């Protein structure tokens, strides 16, 4: 699904802001020597301290960033060789929940959730849309504009939008950061269902309780970034 071999990445640091460990081209190597395979049908967690590069790793996976070193493929395609339209196609197969989700603020929530269908030129199945909104607890807010949603409601809407195209891979960046425990478990349930139906899931989170509770229901690999490297966390967590 996603294959990374010895992948390295660093952001360009502009105008004189040069932390240590920066390479000749003016990049600080944030991630280096990452080797990872996201296996189809597996449930993955990604943890690590704040600023360690979780979001960066996810952005690499949906081709929002390009690796500065190593080899990386998604669905068998070299990410660096993708044309812009191929990137669009890739993103229709990868549903992403961003850490600070953004919407089209002028369209009501329901249209925002259905937007991936609209831009892909597919028909919107109103029944399925309503079910999905109900599952994430937003039926009441279907006609609300995104700026009037609470933080947790935005995260739930982002998850609904990410899964509406029933993508092969779901990437979720702290999807429960603003949610209480009950709602968090409800969303994880949705992801677990998707995973059981064969989809691959990768959830970045710092909430160890969430990981424990999920592992009780599904086999999950827990990956941990620290110091720019990826480790497979043990069963102890």
């Amino acid at each position, binding site marked *: 699904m996603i294959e990374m071999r010895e992948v390295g990445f660093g952001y360009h640091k502009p105008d004189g802001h040069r932390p240590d460990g920066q390479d000749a081209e003016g990049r600080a190597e944030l991630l280096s020597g990452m080797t990872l395979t996201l296996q189809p049908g597996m449930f993955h967690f990604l943890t690590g301290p704040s600023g360690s590069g979780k979001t960066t790793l996810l952005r690499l996976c949906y081709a929002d960033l390009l690796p500065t070193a190593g080899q990386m493929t998604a669905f068998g395609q070299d990410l660096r060789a993708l044309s812009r339209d191929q990137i669009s196609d890739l993103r*229709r197969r990868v549903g992403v929940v961003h850490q600070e989700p953004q919407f089209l603020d002028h369209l009501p929530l329901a249209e925002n959730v259905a937007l991936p269908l609209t831009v892909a030129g597919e028909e919107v199945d109103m029944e399925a849309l309503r079910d999905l909104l109900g599952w994430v607890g937003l039926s009441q807010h279907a006609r609300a504009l995104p700026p009037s949603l609470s933080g947790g409601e935005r995260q739930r809407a982002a998850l609904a939008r990410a899964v509406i195209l029933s993508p092969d891979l779901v990437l979720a960046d702290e999807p429960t950061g603003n949610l209480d425990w009950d709602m968090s478990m409800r969303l994880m349930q949705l992801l677990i269902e998707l995973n059981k139906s064969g989809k691959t899931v990768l959830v970045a989170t710092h909430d160890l309780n969430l990981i424990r509770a999920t592992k009780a229901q599904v086999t999950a690999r827990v990956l941990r970034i620290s110091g720019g490297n990826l480790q497979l966390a043990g069963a102890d967590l």
Partner: protein
Amino acid sequence: MRGLNLMALWRGLAGAEGGKGDRIVPPTGFTAQLTLFSAGAMAFLAVFALALALATGRLADRWSQELAGSVTVRVSAPVAEQEAEVQSALSILQTTPGAGQPRLLPQDELAQLLEPWFGPDMPVDALPVPALIDLPVTGDDFDAEGLRLRLEAEAPGAVLDDHTEWRRPLVSAAQRLRVLGIVSLVLIAAASAAMITLAAKAALAANLQVIRVLRLIGARDLTIATAFVRRFTRRAAVGSVIGTLAGMGGIALLPDASAAGGFLTGLGFQGWDWLMPLTIPLVAAGVGFLATRWAALKMLEAVR
């Protein structure tokens, strides 16, 4: 009441919605109104500049035509020498570049010319009336000043009377005004293009978040660009149609110049000229299309 309706119309135009695909672009905003307004204002000014260029062009043509009539050479010499002077003047005139065949006016035509001065009973034969030669001007290379000097040297009794000469500065003035009109037109077109481009860029920059979101959920460049381009082309077109019609209305309302005589043929459009300002919205829409397309594709490049 009226003000409200105008406001509603303006909002409707500035935020007009197209097909379903266009819903991904936020409906309105000040940059949208700015695009519409710039296009309108510039089209309005362009109509006036066009009218100026056309009117001064007509004026210059007309005055030039009148200029190109004929000149008169008056030969007055003692009676004994008159015949010889006339002959030498005629030979000079025959070799003048840009002039046609010179013609010596017969006595009766002379008498006719003098009639208002001396009445019909005048004894032309008894008087030292000068001989008049009419010289039609046929070419642009006719040089009145040169001819005057040649006559002075070779036939001192012959005087060139260029009775339309005073109009020459008017023609050059009209031509100058025409150049001014054309220059304004070019300047206005350039300024409009720049303004529409900047307005499109500003609107796109204001919609950067929209573009980012769309790319992230898998929209293709073409889908995004098309929605914006359609929106902006329509705005530029609508704005400039309004501006053009307002400008044409203004021109039509100007008092007709014919009352003021034939010298200035009015600022209005005449006949088929009325079709020319209609090209302004086409140009504006074209500029809007190209500017937005370029700006959209450039902005998309910055978003993966």
